[in-house]
């Protein structure tokens, strides 16, 4: 890709930029705004869950016609959980996480001038922006936004008579997601092509940092699975608007038999989850890749088991495409499938365990620099273990019977996505903020942010497992209809307090982020003494990343604390310092790691 010496206007620099670094910031800011909306919604419905009969002025203020005297309606409760889930999974943790870091890091870490197609990259962002706008607009529809859960199973999502949000709200949701999927696919294609074709001289695939492996494989999973969601959405649009019966059959509602014949909601579930399961690994793998990078850099040690880490990413990616049925154990599908999916699902625990053990071994005998980025990465390891272990229970079909769709599931997926993946995103932001903005974020605020967040995250989601085991279903507007759940009410209050404090605590991060952009301490070229290529570019961004030739790569990314005598941990550093950039050629007699 050659340099274009065009005259930059405000519009071409900040709005319709083709530069991957600007596009990554656009993804980040949009993702953060959507995140604020998503977390605000969760705080509203947590108020309802803790104090179902209490009136709240904030509910009165924000929910307009969907509340009475400060108490939200059951319909809008379901809409809030639906949109919360949709925004967090797709807009924050897919576009916000992959969109930001794949865009920022891929060209920089592989040694390329920019993505394979800067133009398509720009389109990918603007489609994401438009889909975000459509999703937010759907909140203001009179009958309410989509309310059938983020999983939008028909017939509930197909029939406005079944729930008001399945009218215009659902139409807008589907439109938004169709545009979102287009954005995601274009982005993923760009990432794959760039990683395969534009690596600099010496950057063999086996010298790529683990972030690259994670983003690359994530993009492949995306390309394989997102189109299936698009097809499910299209078929649903057909059922909703053109009278087809892909997912609908034998329905009597609002006093009449509907015309649909022959379709099955279970088909939708298969199509949805064929994306839905890989989607959660699309969310998680980039966070795990970022964690590898940050833990090794801040431990001043190579990531333990580099090849095993690559193998694990591939195994997780492959297995993730054949486990979707574990969301459907009691859907009414043939029980034989239940056995098949239990088998494949529980296998995923193995590469996941390998990754967790490898992170921990990287910490062992390290020289841990406990910057906020590192704290979030260590926090991710902790919450990933906690959340991942309960996956072993849920993936076992016989056990899933009694915990399916209870708060046990909600606790599990929040710990692995809502906490672990978000921690990966935060860690990435703290770590690569100097690369994005040429300044550093404040560490005191970072420490406060971390501790408040992790304490509240565990406070919210750990007890939640137990109310799930008590039999409490999810997506319940209130527990007051069942006296048998009266004794979990106190736990719901405690969870809500942690959630409110945790939610408000994110303001510290937002303040730190935005203030540091303008008033943060200016960064040096390589503030973390990291080996990877992105730290060899100038602090002030230039198109094409390197002012002269792109550096040539001679080694992998993890030569930290390499010693003169490999057997003696206290001998001198081989290159005189505890890090060796990928661009440094091997010393005579030095072995490749």
């Amino acid at each position, binding site marked *: 890709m050659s340099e274009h010496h065009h005259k930059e206007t405000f519009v071409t620099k900040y709005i319709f930029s083709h530069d991957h670094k600007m596009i990554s910031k656009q993804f980040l800011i949009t993702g953060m705004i959507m995140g604020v909306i998503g977390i605000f919604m969760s705080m509203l419905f947590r108020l309802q869950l803790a104090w179902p009969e209490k009136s709240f002025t*904030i509910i009165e*203020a924000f929910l307009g016609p969907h509340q009475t005297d400060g108490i939200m309606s*059951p*319909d809008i409760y379901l809409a809030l959980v639906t949109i919360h889930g949709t925004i967090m999974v797709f807009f924050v943790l897919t576009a916000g996480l992959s969109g930001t870091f794949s865009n920022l890091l891929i060209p920089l870490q592989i040694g390329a001038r920019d993505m394979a197609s800067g133009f398509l990259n720009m389109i990918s962002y603007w489609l994401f922006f438009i889909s975000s706008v459509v999703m937010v607009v759907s909140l203001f529809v009179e009958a309410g936004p989509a309310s*059938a*859960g983020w999983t939008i199973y028909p*017939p*509930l999502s197909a029939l406005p008579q*079944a729930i008001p949000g399945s009218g215009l709200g659902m139409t807008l949701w589907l439109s938004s997601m169709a545009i979102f999927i287009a954005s995601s696919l274009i982005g993923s294609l760009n990432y794959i092509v760039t990683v395969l074709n534009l690596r600099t001289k010496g950057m063999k695939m086996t010298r790529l940092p683990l972030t690259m492996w994670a983003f690359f494989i994530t993009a492949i999973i995306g390309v394989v699975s997102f189109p299936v969601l698009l097809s499910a959405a299209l078929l649903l649009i057909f059922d909703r608007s053109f009278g087809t019966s892909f997912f*609908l059959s034998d329905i009597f*509602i609002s*006093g009449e*038999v509907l015309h649909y014949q022959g379709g099955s*909601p279970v088909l939708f579930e298969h199509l949805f989850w064929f994306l839905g399961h890989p989607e959660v690994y699309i969310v998680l793998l980039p966070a795990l890749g970022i964690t590898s990078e940050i833990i090794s850099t801040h431990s*001043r040690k190579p990531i333990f088991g580099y090849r095993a880490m690559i193998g694990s990413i591939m195994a997780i990616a492959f297995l993730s495409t054949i486990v979707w049925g574990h969301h459907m154990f009691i859907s*009414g599908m043939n*029980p034989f499938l239940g056995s098949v999916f*239990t*088998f494949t699902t529980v296998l995923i625990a193995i590469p996941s*365990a390998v990754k967790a*053990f490898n992170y921990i*071994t990287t910490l062992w005998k390290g*020289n*841990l*620099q*406990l*910057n906020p980025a*590192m704290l979030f990465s*260590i926090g991710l390891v*902790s919450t990933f273990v906690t959340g991942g*272990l*309960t996956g*072993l229970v849920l993936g*076992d*079909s*016989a*056990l899933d*019977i*009694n915990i*399916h769709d209870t708060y046990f599931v909600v606790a599990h997926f929040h710990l692995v996505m809502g906490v672990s993946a978000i921690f990966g995103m935060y860690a990435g932001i703290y770590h690569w903020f100097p690369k994005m903005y040429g300044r550093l974020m404040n*560490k005191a605020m970072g*420490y406060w942010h971390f501790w408040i967040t992790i304490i509240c995250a565990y406070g919210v989601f*750990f*007890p939640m497992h*137990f109310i799930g085991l*008590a*039999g409490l279903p999810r997506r319940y507007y209130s*527990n007051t*209809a*069942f*006296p*048998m759940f009266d*004794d979990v009410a106190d736990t719901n209050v405690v969870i809500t307090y942690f959630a409110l404090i945790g939610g408000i605590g994110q*303001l510290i991060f937002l303040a730190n982020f935005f*203030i540091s952009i303008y*008033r943060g*301490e200016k960064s040096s070229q390589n*503030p973390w003494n990291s080996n990877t290529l992105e730290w060899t570019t100038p602090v002030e961004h230039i198109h094409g990343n390197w002012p002269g030739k792109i550096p040539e790569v001679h080694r992998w990314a993890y030569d930290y604390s390499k*010693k003169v005598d490999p057997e003696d*941990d206290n001998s001198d550093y081989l290159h005189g310092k505890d890090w060796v950039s990928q661009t440094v050629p091997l010393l005579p007699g030095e072995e490749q790691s």
Partner: protein
Amino acid sequence: MLALFYIFIGVAIGVSFWQITRILNLRGVIATDKDNDRQGKYFILFGIFIYALMIYCLIGMNVLMLPESASYEGENDDLLFDISFWMIGIVQFIMQFIIFFFTYKYRGKKTNKAKFYADNHMLEMIWTIIPGVVIIVLIGFGIFQWTEVMYVDEDEDPILIEVYAKQFAWQARYAGADNTLGLGNVNFIDETNNPIGVDMSDPASLDDKPVTELHLPKGKKVLFKFRSQDVLHSAYMPHFRAQMNCVPGMVTQFAFTPKYTTEEMREQSEVMDKTRGINKIRSKKGEDLYEFDYVLLCNKICGASHYSMQMKIIVEEEEDYKRWLAEQATYAEKL
């Protein structure tokens, strides 16, 4: 309007924060040895917090949990669950300890040197194979148990009951003397006379008995057949370790054998503890006291009143069940 007020407050807080930080020193950006020391120690404190939280939830919240399985098939579900939970519990306590301890022990000092330790194939093998073996055993047990629960041997001649779901109520019918459910379809629905759409021309329908609450005989296998009228619902009977989606256009099924009558369950110490806890809360609020009953809940989002769809289930001795069933009118008698 009020929303604007809140937004304004939010902006005001943001701006004041911004202004305040202009006075503050935003310097201090990269962790020093002192930071590492302090944060490392915080991890130990945090570890203690996490242990306390986990122990409190595991022990203190025990009274909230479901009592022992009220179905025979569920006994092995619970055994598998206990084994799995003990296993993941032990792993969890060990791993969290290691994570927090390592963070503390290896907290950075400028004078320290990290160990260059890139891989160890033996170690990798060990922690791939051992989890692999444990997991294969768990899967084996799980798949066996799943097969036991899900495949119903028709030779056992279970009692057939149809449970019918609609927004927002459960209805049911018993198969009557011929133990065969008559055909049903939404096209036969007449909201006053035939709310669940039974095909009255099918001879098997005439002895079917529609009911408003479920009575089940202790010790006899019951096979539930599920239908839904409108959207997805899910028949969740947690005490029996039973759940199955109700899908419009499909008949789904689930079977179990009740183990304890409602009376027997009410005398169980776990149930009595839980009931006591619930009634303490209810009497403080001036509500009627709760007496344990088995219950059928809806567990798949189905619309506004998803949270209140329920049907009472009573398990009784076989003679009592037969007496109750005899009192229920058949469709033939109703016509």
